[in-house]
């Protein structure tokens, strides 16, 4: 209905291959970015930024990371939490060793450590597929978690066994540590997330993204067409882990302020996996939708009872939240196994062909 595509013709491959070839999509994207960069900072309160927007963006980025591996390259991973942890610990070590270097730079660099480790754990993917591969990544998950506990060097021998984010400034503004304002954190997180999402979108529409999808869709055919399976999968592992690592580092630096090994447990892995599946495998926008659903819904649920005047203990609410989320996950898997991204796609298609049904 809102899509009026008549008259939008392409006279060059450049415009035909653009990220958003339809004018209305470009407008929509511009509106979303304007809301994120202007409207939200102007209107949101600290609670909204800290409890909703920042974690939402962090999880979105992590979900993008996992999506690269699982959604685009078809390799199931249950080790996302640990790879995020690697990023967090790497960034923490870097910024405590070199306190003067820009923390955002370190957050971005920390991803390389998790990329390296991700690639190592990706090695078995050459021979192992599907559920079997989940074992590899589970091994990574538990092994790395164990490392976070057992190697005191990683948390600078802190008595609590946790990493605590020091105060760091960027351009004179405190961006990390307890004193950083939610707004400053928000901008950093938003900036990094949008930046990486944009870059990865580029990769996905080019040769490398295509080679991942070839492996995902039909690995034997891909191989016979000259795609080196190991190289391609390892690259997906590395890129995916890089993004997860950055997300993990952002999680502790700009959101939690402190993190212990259990912050990066298997539960986090599953949480991210849910975001990817419910959002839609193989869709970047799905990562955002999935993160919004899995993160924001429980937050909202916690407020519903008090909002309608019910006096329920915090614990009960917690339990109910678990039930509702679990139930909704099953519900959405049944309704649309391909996730919210597919729902949006269907809706978009409907709008494009409106008033026709197809």
């Amino acid at each position, binding site marked *: *209905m809102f*899509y*009026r*595509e*008549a*008259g*939008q*013709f*392409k*006279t*060059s*491959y450049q415009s*035909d291959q653009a990220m958003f070839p339809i004018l209305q999509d470009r407008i929509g994207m511009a509106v979303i970015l304007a809301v994120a960069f202007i409207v939200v900072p102007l209107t949101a309160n600290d609670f909204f930024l800290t409890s909703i927007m920042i974690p939402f963006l962090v999880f979105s980025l992590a979900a993008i990371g996992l999506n690269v591996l699982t959604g685009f390259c078809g390799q199931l991973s249950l080790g996302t939490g640990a790879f995020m942890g690697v990023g967090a610990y790497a960034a923490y070590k870097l910024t405590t060793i070199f306190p003067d270097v820009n923390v955002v730079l370190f957050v971005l660099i920390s991803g390389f450590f998790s990329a390296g480790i991700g690639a190592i754990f990706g090695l078995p993917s050459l021979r192992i597929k599907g559920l079997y591969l989940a074992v590899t990544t589970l091994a990574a998950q538990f092994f790395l978690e164990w490392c976070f506990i057992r190697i005191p060097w990683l948390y600078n021998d802190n008595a609590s066994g946790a990493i605590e984010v020091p105060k760091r400034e960027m351009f004179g503004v405190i961006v990390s540590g307890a004193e950083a304002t939610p707004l400053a954190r928000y901008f950093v997180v938003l900036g990094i997330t949008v930046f990486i999402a944009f870059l990865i979108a580029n990769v996905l529409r080019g040769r490398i993204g295509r080679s991942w999808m070839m492996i995902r869709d039909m690995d034997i055919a891909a191989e016979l067409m000259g795609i080196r399976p190991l190289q391609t999968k390892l690259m997906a592992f590395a890129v995916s882990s890089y993004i997860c690592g950055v997300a993990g580092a952002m999680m502790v630096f700009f959101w939690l302020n402190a993190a212990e090994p259990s912050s990066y447990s298997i539960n986090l892995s599953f949480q991210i996996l849910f975001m990817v599946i419910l959002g839609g495998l193989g869709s970047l926008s799905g990562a955002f939708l999935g993160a919004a659903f899995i993160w924001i819904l429980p937050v909202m649920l916690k407020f519903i009872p008090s909002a309608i005047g019910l006096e329920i203990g915090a614990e009960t609410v917690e339990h109910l939240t678990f039930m509702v989320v679990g139930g909704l996950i099953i519900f959405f898997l049944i309704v649309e196994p391909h996730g919210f991204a597919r729902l949006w796609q269907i809706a978009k298609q409907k709008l494009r*062909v*409106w*008033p*026709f*049904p*197809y």
Partner: protein
Amino acid sequence: MAGLADTAAGGVDTFPKILLRNAVIFGDRTAVREKDFGIWQSWTWSEVLDEIRKFSLGLQELGLQPGDKVAVVGSNRPRLYWSMVATQALGGVPVPVYADSVAEEMAYVLAHAEARFAMVEDQEQVDKLLSMDGADVPLQHIIYDEPRGLRDYDHTRLHAFTDVQARGEKLLSADAGCRERWEQAIAKGKGDDLAVMLYTSGTTGRPKGVMLTFDNLVISARNANKFDRLDETDEIIAYLPLAWVGDHVFSLAQAYTAGFCVNCPESMETVDVDRLEIAPSYFFAPPRVFENMLTRIMVRMEDAGPLKRKMFDYFMDVARRCGENILNGEDVPFKDRVLYSLGEFCVYGPLKNRIGLTRLKVGYTAGEAIGPEIFQFFRSLGLNLKQLYGQTEAAVYITLQPDGEIYGDTVGKPAPDVELKIADNGEVLYRSPGSFIGYFKNDEATQSTKTEDGWVHTGDAGIIADNGHLKIIDRAKDVGKLTDGSLFAPKYIENKLKFFPNIKEAVAFGHERDKVCAFINIDLTAVGSWAERNNVNYASYQELAAHPDVYGMIEKHVDQVNRDLSREPMMAGAQINRFLILHKELDADDGELTRTQKVRRNFIAERYGELIEALYDGSTSKHTRTEVTFEDGRKGAIEATVEIRDMTPHSAAETVQEAAE
């Protein structure tokens, strides 16, 4: 910027001249687009000039002489259009040929036109032309656009378009003066030079080559542009056969004179998608295209959810009520206006978007009568769809419906500079700047079509209504006369009868008789459901047809038709005097209809001779026996006594009086 072409028109009277001018005044505007290799490849006017110049010089180098004919065969592709102007620049004459015509027919045209060159699209056409070797086709060179599959062919007479261009380019770089000479040659061209020869298939006999001059085309095109305010900002999609005069005028003559952009689709299967992408502002389609569009819209809406369908039906009702009035700029109640704009957002806008007509400024349909409901449907959406009447011999335009003066049963007012008159036998004659100079090598046909003083016979019978609009009633040769001399147009009367849902077929008689009588076939579905509602019992078609109530109903319809006829001075004499309802349905299996469901008048007249006799001998009923073929192929006969009813004709005065009351 708009309308620049007009102001600079003076003295620029041939397409090569116009091309040179367009390359100057529209240099960087897009002249041609073709969807090829997935995107719209575009050429600006100055690029088009370059392409044409190179090709033209290449042709010259191949030996094209002034006056040579160049056959152009293929689908709508830029290079084929360019080859026409390139030919004209050398004083040659392009002869577009229908690409789908069989080899034998094509051979006739090529031989008749004495084409020495052919510009064709691809291997298929090359093969067709090569197969004509040995016949008296004087082809010396064949140039092709699409090289696929042609690599191993003998290239002594065969040339790729690009190779010809390369020859031209070599000429250009070798000889500095060559370019100037080429332009000088163009300057020597005159408006009354032969511009193009278009072969019309004609219903009988061999195709005839209609010779049109530059003046014919250029002036007609300029008039049409002015009439619909078309300028260089417009977009058109070229998808109809390029040998057809319409495409030649829309996609070449008007495009050059107005300077608008011609878009060539990727392939025949992608026309719909390509139209959607381009969203043409000027669009022509024969009625069947609109018919298909409407059918597809309806079929797809059938599959829509109930809510959506309800919304669609509701807003289509609104559109039917006030859409056309709004389009015509008439007064419409405020509430309807609001509803209509709501509908525009919810239904009409998206719908126009899906069929790619969002930017439509003016659309035309012609060729045959378009169903009024189809026509109204598109107009009520806010599409400025109009009808025109034209033919090859007129360089298309004879009459046009002006904006806001749309009447479903007329084809509009005379186009600018066109004079119109109706001959005694009802035939429409016209005299216009577009009138052709004659048929090529067929003086006999020329003389019988075009009078000394320039009037051209259209072959159609028509009448000019009070408001000055032309109404086509029938082919002129089918129009007869009653013994009292009044005009008798059977199809016109039959169509009027068939307008009633209860009447499925009608056959009118009257040529060289003293009065008009008619056979009528009732529509079993419509009359059957009427019978059900009115508790009329019947066992068969025959029984229902003979039912007195049915006769009564049909009588009313016939009376209504007579009343309509009486209002038209030329038709008032041919009112239906007597009629009968046939005891059986006219059936293609019995040879009474053609397979396309058209009435075979002569066959019916013979088969039901005794009934016709009865109609004219004054008897009130007649017993008859008819052989029939049943659905399973068995033969049999049905017998019936058919009642004949008398009608009282209305006098013209009576109707006028009624109107006064």
